[in-house]
């Protein structure tokens, strides 16, 4: 089974096993990765599951919908490869992927 690595803003790393079909947000929550709030429980409606995907993996994770882009736009720490992790479905193709967490969720 493959894994994905979350890196907190302070540099702490969390390697989590890939569970096909669940969301990246759920993977963080299930493995108690600190720094993801997920206030809306995965509805793409709160913006507090923000992650910054390593640019080498952007092509693997799929496209953003308009609604996701709009929610991300309201995140002060938005970066070029920012995503809402609840909108990314985890697959085995993401084995080795690295995602960073912002300093704050908002």
């Amino acid at each position, binding site marked *: 089974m493959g894994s994905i690595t979350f890196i907190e803003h302070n540099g702490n790393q969390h390697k989590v096993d890939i569970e096909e079909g669940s969301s990246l947000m759920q993977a963080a929550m299930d493995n108690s990765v600190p720094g993801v709030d997920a206030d809306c*429980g995965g509805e793409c409606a*709160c913006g507090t599951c923000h992650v910054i995907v390593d640019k080498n993996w952007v092509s693997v994770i799929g496209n953003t919908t308009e*609604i996701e882009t*709009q*929610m991300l*736009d309201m995140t*002060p720490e938005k970066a070029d490869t920012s995503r809402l992790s609840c909108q990314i479905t985890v697959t085995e193709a993401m084995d080795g992927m690295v995602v960073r967490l912002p300093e*704050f969720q*908002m």
Partner: protein
Amino acid sequence: MNFLSSIVEKSASLTSMPAIVEKATSLVSIPVIVEKTSKVIPLPLQIKGIHLFLKAKNKVWKSKSVPVFIESPIPDVSTLAIEDIDVSNPFLFKQNMWESYFKRLRDECPVHYQKNSPFGPFWSVTRYKDIVFVDRRHDLFSAEPIIVIGDRPEGMAIETFIAMDPPKHDIQRKAVQNVVAPKNLLEMEDLIRSRAVDVLDNLPIDEPFDWVEKVSVELTARMLATLFDFPYEHRHKLAYWSDVIAASPETTGGECSADEMFIGAAEMAEYFTRLWREKEAKKEAGEEMGYDLISLLLSNEKTKNMINKPMEFMGNLALLIVGGNDTTRNSMTGGVLALNEFPNEFIKLKNDPSLIPNMVSEIIRWQTPLAYMRRVAKEDVELNGKTIKKGDKVVMWYVSGNRDERSIDQPDQFMIDRKKARNHLSFGFGIHRCMGNRLAEMQLRILWEELLTRFDNIEVLDEPEYVQSNFVKGYTKMMVKLSAKT
């Protein structure tokens, strides 16, 4: 609080006017006058001018009357036919009757149409999932022109982005949101804490006093003064403006007169124009700028000239003042009340203060300081078996969704260690999700951290008194007694 569109006076009903006059008034619409004259006439005078204009107009043309709400006991909900249930009644919260009303709607008619309320017909959406649906779908439901049940009254069209749709909303929000972003809050936390400590250290012990006045109102006024770097000795003005701007009968069934609102708004404009000019002079003199709202707006290329668009300037300031005032205030009171109604939770808290952040979310759910937000359907929408027609008003009752047994475990229980406590509706969802949510959480966290180190008990002595409004769910008075920590 009705986020501003109530700085306005209910005025002549256009239907009784001759057609030609109607045309003339709509051409010379008031906001246009204001934008055009903003460079010449100071903003406070403009507001006074609009007030006089509307007053005169009211005298000349037949005025549509403002609804008058006279309190009478609210009946047991089981005695009513479903179509007669009217949850816009501004006494529903005041008489603390709301729980059974919303439970009946959730169970029997979760998407409910009330066709003759004093505010006109409206839909009520009362289940958690349906509320999230409406709040997310800004493509189907518009926040314009106002987010309270009543119609937008005529008059000063102050622009606040809480009542705008994209793309305008997004641009305006982005311009100001950094002020309350967590990074900036970190800079302000120490000052907010020291000002809170000063209040708590001076509270009477073993003696009854009003928690609303001495703690909740005082702390929120101090916080706002800090956020705006507003002259500290005048901080009560902030709370006062927010209150008068907040509560008109025609929008939320509140108790404030149009005269009070206009005088308050004019005074507020005067103060903030002066504050802006002072900070601008500081900036031009090359002095170091602070982390307060106006300094941040002045240092941003996109917003440094905001004062030249007075309606936008006033709108943004007022939205922050009104948005940040009685919401947090009522959560400060609600938390104490909840811990008194659920004394075991108080014991749990004292045994484990690390529960404070989770409790703060639970307090905000349990209180739901803003009962709802209103939308207007942009097209026909099918929701839970009902067809909402294009143009219909749709009210998302957060206060009901937060008690929806279908989505929340034992929702009427206050549990400070509740799992997924953050998944409440009180801050709304989607693009309008509360911009000040982190600030509100921070203030409540500071309050409870400092309370626990000082007091052994906060005893609520009497039933609290509640605000008259269908929008603000809050308190006017709550007598308590403190015991010191031994």
